[in-house]
């Protein structure tokens, strides 16, 4: 009876039901397809990179990892110094970036007055938005000359007896050290903004409890905040490490693209990603191309492991917090 007063109800139900059934399953199918396409692309990346590296894998085998030659003339290729260079630059950058990021995170979450937090946080995140090629350009013409004239000589004069800090007086501009600085600048925004989120997530009652018991702010940070988010900070650092390991452009612009590696970080070097990037037009033979793809494969495996580990830690950490 009431339904009769609503116009048009007789026609609507049937069409709607058919349309809705179709529409629902169509939307479900389409979105499911899109979601699994993403997973398919990941599988495809792994497969294609592996297949592309296959000729080099066949030729050089696993020995590619510790052979140290890059000679297109005789078609001998190996990755040892590139792997070492990758690890040295990334860990050097992490050693510089981790304490700085934690300090910035603490400043933005605990110290800064609320009116400062927003703008400063945004500015730090803007640093992450600067494209790597611009950071690299700035690295070549501003940072590297400045650093070469001031930092390595100073460090060498104090720690020069250690082989890795030797030769600072040479004032070489394109160095492993310059690459570390560039990478540090690139990962600080990532790690510091994750750290800030973690520190903000610590329950206020805990912090107030510590302060109420007479702790200074630093003691509160040391005894309450840092212990309760330690896992998250580790994950943030690993995520930054993953970014540093894979950075190709900015590193290849400042590192000098030179192997065999020297002992000192104040000399030119090279990394997996930057070697791949710098050879984009120089590859002549098929085996050289396959070797470059082999480098990318090694990089893929390394970053895959680091990122996956970081994600797992973050996930476990979230669950702990929720429980």
């Amino acid at each position, binding site marked *: 009876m009431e339904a009769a007063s609503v116009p048009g109800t007789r026609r609507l139900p049937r069409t709607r039901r058919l349309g*809705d059934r179709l*529409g*629902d399953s169509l*939307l*479900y199918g389409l*979105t499911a*397809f*899109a*979601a699994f*396409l*993403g997973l398919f692309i*990941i599988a495809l*990346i792994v497969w*294609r*990179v592996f297949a592309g590296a296959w000729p080099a894998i066949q030729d050089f085998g696993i020995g590619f990892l510790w052979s140290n030659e890059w000679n297109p003339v005789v078609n001998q290729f190996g990755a040892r110094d590139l792997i070492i260079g990758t690890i040295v630059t990334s860990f050097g950058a992490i050693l510089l970036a981790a*304490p*700085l990021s934690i*300090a910035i995170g*603490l*400043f933005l979450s605990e*110290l800064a007055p609320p009116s400062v937090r927003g703008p400063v946080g*945004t*500015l730090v995140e803007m640093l992450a*938005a*600067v*494209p*790597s*090629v*611009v*950071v*690299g350009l*700035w690295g*070549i*013409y*501003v940072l590297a000359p400045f650093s070469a004239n001031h930092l390595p000589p100073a460090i060498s004069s104090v720690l020069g007896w250690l082989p890795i800090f030797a030769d600072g007086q040479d004032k070489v501009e394109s160095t492993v050290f310059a690459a570390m600085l560039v990478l540090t*600048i690139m990962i*600080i*925004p990532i790690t*510091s903004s994750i750290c800030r989120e973690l520190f903000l997530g610590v329950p206020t009652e805990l912090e107030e409890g510590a302060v109420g018991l007479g702790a*200074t702010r*630093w003691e509160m940070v040391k005894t309450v905040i840092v212990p309760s988010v330690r896992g998250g900070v580790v994950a943030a650092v690993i*995520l930054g490490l*993953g*970014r540093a390991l*894979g950075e*190709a*452009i900015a590193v290849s612009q400042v590192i000098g693209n030179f192997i065999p590696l020297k002992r000192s970080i104040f000399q030119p070097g090279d990394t997996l990603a930057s070697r*791949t*990037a710098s050879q*984009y037009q120089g590859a002549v033979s098929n085996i050289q191309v396959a070797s470059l*793809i082999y480098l*990318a494969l090694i*990089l*893929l495996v390394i*970053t*895959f492991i680091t*990122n*996956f580990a*970081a*994600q797992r830690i973050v996930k476990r950490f979230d669950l702990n917090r929720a429980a």
Partner: protein
Amino acid sequence: MIDSPTPQLSLKATGRARRRLFVNKAAELAALSAAVAAIAVLAILVWSVFSRGLHALNWDFFTKGPAVFGQTGGGVAPALVGSALLVGIATAMALPFGVMTAIFVSEFAPKKLGDQIRLWLDVLNGFPSIVIGIFVFTLMVQKPLPVVGWGNHQSAFAGGFALAVIMLPLVARATIEVLALVPNHLREASYALGVSKWNTVIRVVLPTSFGGILTGTTLAIARAAGETAPLLFTCVLAGQTVDWNPTHSVNSIPFTIFSYSEAPDENLHQQAWALAFVLIVFVLVSSLTARFLLERSRRKLGTR
């Protein structure tokens, strides 16, 4: 004993307390200086780019092709056009699939599956961009694209596809977050009126989160526009003229900066700085605007 003078009481910290306060001050100062250092680096970087890039900008820079080697002047019009083309192709591929992935995760998938997909999107986001470039190279530049049999050379299409792989997880993650902010009572109200799920998604959920999706996409575009590594093996061997054909390899802003920065010619360095200026202004302005709008749409959704 009783009338011996009481010890001087003072609020001034001494001994252990003084040391604790001193350590506290030192730690606060360290945190402050770390933040100041980070902002100083950003300021110096932006200032270098502005001061070196600004005076190389003129009308020719935007409208002309590169000058003949050794001559001054000339412009970067091919790179500007090429970047627009590449980013356009990438957005056309990444936006629909990213949004659909997000709809699947937040509206259809069971929680466990959704978490898995999110995890893998993060893994994809963590892949180095140079590896994405190599992947596209082996997929459709080194050989023809499997099944379709198309490609076998560098092209704007290949470069755009590489950028789309970079953008996909960014768009999807941002959209998942925004969809999660859509209040459930809006969906429930729609269902209560007898509206089907797909209609609810398209007429209620998506319009409500439109602003958020737009800003997430803008952030992804800002990121893709500055990526060089995915293009190195997929789209760099290009002519010096403006080219809108997606099957041709085209110039791009980031690659032009990369190659000019290592060129021996002072004139080209100038142009690299000027291009960096253009790129940084685009990236910073678009991501600042996007952030601002995102904050606003979050507030709007949160208070509704």
